């Protein structure tokens, strides 16, 4: 039944394996194109260890080569990754292409590789073996998707800043995706070598990179089997053309090119777009929120949480913040107000690690100012953003689940083995996330994408995501902007409720009524400096504050 198709089916499997090595970096939003180099290194090195006879009489000797290839690929990716992972976008792409080309030239000039003449090997890879490897990869990605690590990848892809603020170590996640990509590329190299029985440096040139990238993007990264979709599509198109009687020659690449163009232009998530809708809606967990009780207790009211002195930030000639001293104690709700451009956002960005200060020092929950954002998040700082930074291609529930990153444990390896403890940990994260969705009233929208939410709901979602981290200090940057009075009132109630639960809140707001309703203390910034501080109602009545807000006062006629 498969006679005459097995070579085709095996090359499709190989194409899918190659595409997985691109899939994993694209999942984390990295345009890394060095896979051809890692694959060739792995292929050549594996020839040194793969035995020439089947193991125990029947097992393909390539089984020895695969771990070796994965190891070589991962190690090479790590070595290349150390210097290049500072780069992003097209710079990362070109640097990694350069690394692959350098490896190609090295192999071409080396003695033991036989240079351009290449090596002949036994063809130990059969099509069932190749598809078994694809199945393993698909399994790995299937289990990765809804795990804590999988969400971290997605979060880094969608928004590095927000991911960092949720406690995801962005640099480590990027490196992890890079190394995984190298390992899969290594596996591909070994499979390639022992399927075709022949390797030459030219086998791993730039066109391999292009075809891997094309397959991965064509398949799409919305589902774990995207690379298989891409490889099947590209493998099937020539067959269909043959079946339609199109003569071999230029017409084939023309048709393939046009079809590829059409998929890219009309299916934004690649072919996986067609399947992404099939995913089941997230189910509400049982009423058992008991695991939440195991969360660490919050510090007692009055405990000093943060203390900064002389904090300043300038962008070129513009001084956004000039010498701010601030103390935050557990249990308080601290409002920061001030007109547009007063430096409020810059101030909280420094406190949460998004921007390093140009002067000043201090610590927040023991983390020195100037550290990277995930350090603050891990210490218990959680925040929302003025322009909401939601993970737009994740569901509402997944957005909140990313929030649980710092209070959950990595489950991926245990999920692979279906260990009950992994299930328990994921359930706990889920319970935590649902509790937050219910807290802000979004539980019925769990399966939606953020883009489908109203403005106020997006704000609430961001708060839920921040709360999922079980924060000690919650920073809200203009949470009520765009809300109507009713919504704002509800939000004020929510914030007071948080304070009752022991969460310390720092929030920036323009809606002064809401600030007065919710805050225990008020700081007013103008031109990057604190112009007033203290009990909310007193501060609000301060003429300097009124002036800063409503504009300069020349006549004394309008008292507020």
């Amino acid at each position, binding site marked *: 039944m498969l006679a005459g198709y097995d070579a085709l089916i095996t090359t499709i499997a190989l194409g899918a394996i190659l595409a997985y090595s691109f899939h994993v970096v694209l999942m984390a939003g990295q345009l890394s194109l060095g896979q051809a180099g890692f694959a060739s290194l792995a292929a050549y090195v594996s020839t040194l260890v793969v035995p020439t006879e089947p193991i125990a009489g029947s097992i393909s000797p390539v089984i020895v080569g695969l771990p070796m290839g994965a190891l070589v690929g991962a190690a090479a990716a790590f070595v290349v990754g150390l210097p290049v992972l500072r780069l992003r976008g097209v710079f990362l792409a070109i640097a990694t292409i350069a690394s692959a080309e350098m490896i190609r030239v090295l192999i071409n000039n080396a003695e033991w590789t036989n240079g351009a003449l290449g090596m002949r090997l036994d063809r130990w890879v059969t099509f069932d073996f190749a*598809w078994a490897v694809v199945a393993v990869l698909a399994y*790995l990605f299937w289990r990765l998707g809804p795990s804590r690590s999988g969400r971290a990848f997605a979060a880094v892809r969608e928004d590095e800043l927000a991911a960092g603020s949720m406690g995801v170590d962005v640099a480590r996640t990027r490196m992890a995706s890079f190394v995984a990509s190298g390992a899969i590329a290594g596996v591909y190299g070994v499979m390639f070598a022992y399927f075709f029985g022949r390797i030459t440096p030219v086998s791993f040139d730039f066109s391999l990179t292009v075809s891997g990238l094309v397959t991965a993007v064509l398949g799409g990264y919305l589902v774990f089997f995207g690379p298989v979709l891409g490889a099947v599509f590209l493998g099937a198109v020539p067959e269909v053309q043959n079946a339609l009687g199109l003569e071999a020659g230029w017409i084939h690449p023309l048709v393939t090119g046009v079809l590829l163009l059409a998929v890219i232009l009309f299916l934004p998530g690649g072919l996986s777009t067609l399947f992404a809708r099939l995913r089941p809606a997230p189910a509400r967990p049982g009423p058992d929120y008991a695991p939440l009780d195991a969360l660490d207790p919050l510090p007692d009211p009055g405990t000093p949480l943060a203390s900064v002195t002389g904090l300043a930030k300038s962008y070129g000639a513009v001084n956004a913040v000039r010498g701010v001293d601030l103390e935050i104690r557990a249990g308080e709700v601290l409002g920061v107000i001030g007109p547009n451009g007063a430096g409020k956002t810059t101030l909280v960005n420094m406190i949460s690690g998004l921007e390093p200060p140009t002067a000043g020092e201090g610590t927040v929950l023991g983390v020195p100012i100037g550290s990277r954002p995930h350090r603050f998040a891990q210490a218990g700082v959680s925040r929302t953003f003025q322009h909401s930074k939601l993970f737009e291609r994740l569901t509402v529930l997944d957005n909140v689940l990313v929030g649980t990153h710092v209070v959950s444990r990595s489950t991926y390896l245990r999920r692979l083995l279906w260990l009950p403890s992994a299930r328990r940990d994921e359930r706990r994260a889920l319970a935590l996330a649902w509790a937050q969705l219910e807290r802000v009233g979004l539980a019925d929208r769990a399966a939606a994408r953020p883009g489908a939410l109203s403005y106020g709901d997006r704000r609430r979602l961001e708060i839920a995501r921040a709360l999922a981290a079980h924060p000690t200090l919650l920073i809200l940057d203009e949470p009520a902007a765009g809300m109507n009075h009713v919504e704002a009132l509800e939000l004020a109630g929510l914030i007071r409720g948080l304070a009752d639960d022991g969460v310390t809140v720092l929030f920036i707001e323009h809606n002064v009524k809401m600030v007065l309703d919710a805050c225990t203390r008020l700081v007013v910034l103008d031109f990057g400096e604190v112009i007033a501080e203290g009990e909310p109602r007193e501060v609000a009545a301060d003429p300097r504050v009124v002036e800063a807000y409503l504009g300069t006062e020349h006549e004394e006629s309008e008292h507020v």
Partner: protein
Amino acid sequence: MRLKSTTGAVLAAAALLATGACVSEDTNEASSDSALSGSGTGADCTIDETVKIGAVFSLTEAAAFAGTYQQEGLALGFEELNAAGGITYEVIQEDDKTSVEDSVAAFGKLIDRDEVSAIVGPTLSNMAFTTYTDAESAGVPALGVSTTAEGIPEMGDYIFRASLPEEVALAASIPAAKEALGLTKVAVLYDNADEFTTSAANTIKDVLNDENIEIVAEETFETADTDFAAQLTSVLEAEPDAVILSALPGATVPLVKQARNLGIEAPIVGGNAFNSPVLVGALEDASEGLIVGGAWSAASDTTGNAEFIANYTEKYGRAPDQFAAQAYTAAYLLDQAIRADCDANREAIKDNLGQILEYDSILGPISIDEGGEVTQEPVVQIVHDGAFTLL
């Protein structure tokens, strides 16, 4: 990947079940179809069934410069044979897109789905090394028409070639050039990213060694390079009597042109890949004095050569090259093998293809031995007044 041993085994089993366990059928059985054997022998042989011949050439991407000539040459050959009657051939043409993946898939299709009697191709030796293991294990005779690398016929009983090995071509052209030009020191320039040219360069160095010719400069470049001035400057400084070049056609034209521009006046000697009218057309004056070893020459008065050139040019609107001539010859060689026993079954073709002795082709007298290797006299040509002439 860590879980390969455990989960992998389970999933492998699952994958096997899912895709059907019927793949490991024994393909090497000598199945013979009586409809493919006819009556009569030699020129009188008639076979009722259409004989299917597979062809795998690179019709697109890098090696299309050769593959399209091969496609045309082979088609012309079988067209003439069909016109002659007795046996009807059908050529099933596949494009390997100059990629190993596609050549393997194409062989799989031809062997199992189309059930061809024999396969001609592929264009590049690199792909032959992979695809011929499939042909061998399936018991399908494969006849190469441009697979000149060392070791190809040795891959199995079903593997043949009608393409002059590069070492034979060079072994002829270098001594001929030495004799004609009195060479004592030469420069060797080759593409070290390509397998064919690197292999040829190794042969060149051996032949030069045998002939006691000194190599005064050895330079390399890569297939995609466009500027060779730096290498050629080094060659120029070494003042060789001749430059021996091992390059694919894409690099040959700019190389020769730039060499002449830089003032290298020494004769340039090349191998198989030089043997193309396109080269002379592109180089015009700069091609004067090029010495080329190969399997075929437009200037030869071998049997049928003039008609071949005329028919080909009329049919395709361009002059044939060596690739076309060799593919054309392959059609006749297969026909010979089939008519020997009036049997187009794979086994019969295999048995008879290895016993072709002194067949008088447009390449001159040609024979294929049991090992699958071709024997023919190489031609050494020199470009004179814009045309290949025999040296």
